[in-house]
């Protein structure tokens, strides 16, 4: 089964994700795969006449009221949704005892190919992870490798799990860490639920890191990959393999430039990438089929801390210059006055 977590304003994207899976979504047994949305928002804020095409589970129904209030008060909306992810995945496994395999996908993801490859890979493993990048960036653009270390080398936007005792242990550990420590605070070694993934291949058995370029094409790795469309769909070439079918694409940071960890990235230049433009256009089309301005204007109810502002243009240049000045003041040698 496939699950996602989103706020009310992301629901059109979550629906597009669900729609994208339908044509390809046979489960491991050949049945149509089910799709479930975890709502990281207050269901009371849904419009009165709203009906969801896919099953919705409000995360608020999985958490005791005081925990919900505490998490909401301490986190930003992004951190809140991340903090609830392991809990949600565990709950889905327990609510659907017949489901043996589960894919978590961010609402910015669109599936473009049969899920068979993913189910097959999961057949032998407990969990699957995808790295942000699979080779060193050969430039001085941003994000650099140091920033990938800050946010974690694996993306938490796509994860797959096979039901097993080891997976139960993995999810219990991850929930224990991520629910309380999903802050974005690089100096403290924290970054949502994502940085914790660094331990999964070390602590748990059969956690596979999938480096195939067809898995999880996104803003952060498209500079190392190239796309072409043919009659059978999108083909992708990357550092680890050529002409692979593109299984899924993550539009985070491309669809909404302020979303994600890389709003100021300057490596991928859309103007030079007609392949990415075409892929993004098909994503935008999929979301516009589900567009709903009432949903999109809803501010998230949970996560009362303010998201950090994304600075662009003169504001960003000014802040950067002022930081240079303050660093200089910190480090300039001052003579000792006696």
């Amino acid at each position, binding site marked *: 089964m496939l699950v996602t977590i989103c706020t009310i304003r992301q629901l059109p994207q979550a629906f597009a994700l669900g729609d994208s899976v339908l044509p390809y979504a046979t489960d491991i047994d050949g049945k149509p795969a089910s799709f479930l949305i975890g709502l990281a928002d207050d269901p009371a804020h849904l419009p009165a006449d709203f009906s969801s095409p896919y099953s919705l589970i409000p995360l608020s129904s999985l958490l005791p009221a005081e925990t919900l209030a505490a998490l909401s008060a301490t986190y930003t909306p992004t951190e809140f949704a991340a903090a609830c992810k392991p809990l949600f995945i565990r709950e889905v496994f327990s609510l659907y005892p017949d489901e043996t395999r589960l894919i978590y996908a961010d609402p910015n993801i669109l599936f473009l190919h049969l899920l068979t490859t993913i189910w097959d890979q999961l057949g032998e493993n407990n969990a699957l992870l995808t790295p942000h*990048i699979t*080779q*060193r960036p050969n430039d001085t653009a941003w994000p650099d490798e140091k920033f990938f*270390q800050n946010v974690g080398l694996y993306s938490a936007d796509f994860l797959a799990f096979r039901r097993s005792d080891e997976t139960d242990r993995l999810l219990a550990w991850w929930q224990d860490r991520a629910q309380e420590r999903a802050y974005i605070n690089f100096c403290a070694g924290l970054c949502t639920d994502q*940085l914790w993934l*660094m331990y999964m291949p070390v602590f748990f058995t059969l956690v596979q890191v999938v480096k195939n370029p067809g898995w999880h094409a996104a803003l952060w790795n498209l500079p190392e990959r190239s796309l072409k469309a043919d009659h059978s769909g999108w083909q992708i070439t990357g550092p680890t393999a050529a002409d692979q079918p593109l299984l899924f694409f993550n539009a985070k940071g491309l669809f909404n430039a302020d979303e994600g960890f890389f709003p100021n990235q300057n490596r991928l230049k859309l103007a030079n990438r007609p392949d990415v433009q075409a892929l993004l256009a098909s994503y935008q089309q999929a979301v516009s089929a589900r567009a709903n301005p009432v949903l999109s204007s809803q501010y998230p109810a949970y996560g009362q801390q303010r998201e950090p502002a994304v600075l662009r243009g003169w504001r960003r240049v000014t802040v950067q210059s*002022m930081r240079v000045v303050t660093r200089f003041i910190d480090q300039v040698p*001052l003579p000792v006055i006696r």
Partner: protein
Amino acid sequence: MTLAFTICSVNYLAQARTLGDSLRKTNPNFQYVIGLVDKLSQARLPADLMPPYPMLEVDQIGIPDFAAMCDRYDITELNTAVKPFYIDYLYETYPDITQVIYFDPDIIVYQPLTKLTQDLTTYSLVLTPHTCSPTPDWERPNEQHHLNTGIYNLGFIGLRRDDTARQFVNWWKERLVYECRIDLCAGLFVDQHWVNFAPIYHDNVLIEHHPGYNVAYWNLHERYLSADEAGQWCVNKSNDPADLKTQADFLQFFHYSGYNPYRPDEISKYQTRYSFLERPDTKPLFDLYRQRLLANYNEQYRQYPCIYIKPPVIYRYQRVRRAMKLPFNRVIALLES
């Protein structure tokens, strides 16, 4: 042929000699070299303090613009930054070696490293995670610390001579020329944090889970020590007496990081989790180490100041600096709100 090496300054030669002695006893077929971040011509060691192992001075291994590197880095950063440069130099200078193993000087090898040398016939790199299982509490060090400083401990790395390992070393060298600093907020922790990328960029990397490798304060929660009838040290994943005999593996090498032989009641200055009262199983290993260090002239070596050491930079007038920054910080806060 396998070459093992360490890197240290003269003040740590007792440690490097203790490591060398342990290798000579357990792995006599290894060649052992001490990379010296110091100058013998300045130290002028008396004959009895000259280690019975070859020493390679850091200014002799052809690090490009080494003087600038010395200016940039403090002594910790410099000692770690030169690691891949040494590895590369060893590859180039000893054409017969097929495997290079780096050990921090404060390590003792307890067994013939047959698994490691065998693994290095198939894998390009062998790395040891700080801990192979979750840490039991939030004492120091815990999982969050390693997220900032590196999942793998770079007191040890095994490398085969092959293209993958050479590519990795070249990339590592490039990074450490300027970015072997400690700046956790910027994702930097000397040479160690960078190595998180090794299993991502390369396929042929072994993440070693053997409990006898790189046993140290950061993984004592998952490793319990005992000696068998023959006096061989063993590591057990549990301290349940019922498991002691059945699940033990031989201790391969112990890393005495942060141990001070003059404070023999402390496991490490970097940890807060255990005292010897709670972990009496580890005490004999530390007592043995203390004995060996003292026998290897630790008292004499520690007196030698490293010639690459610089006086620490002290930024005076913090209040004045804060006042000068105030208007800039106000504008930054305004723009970011």
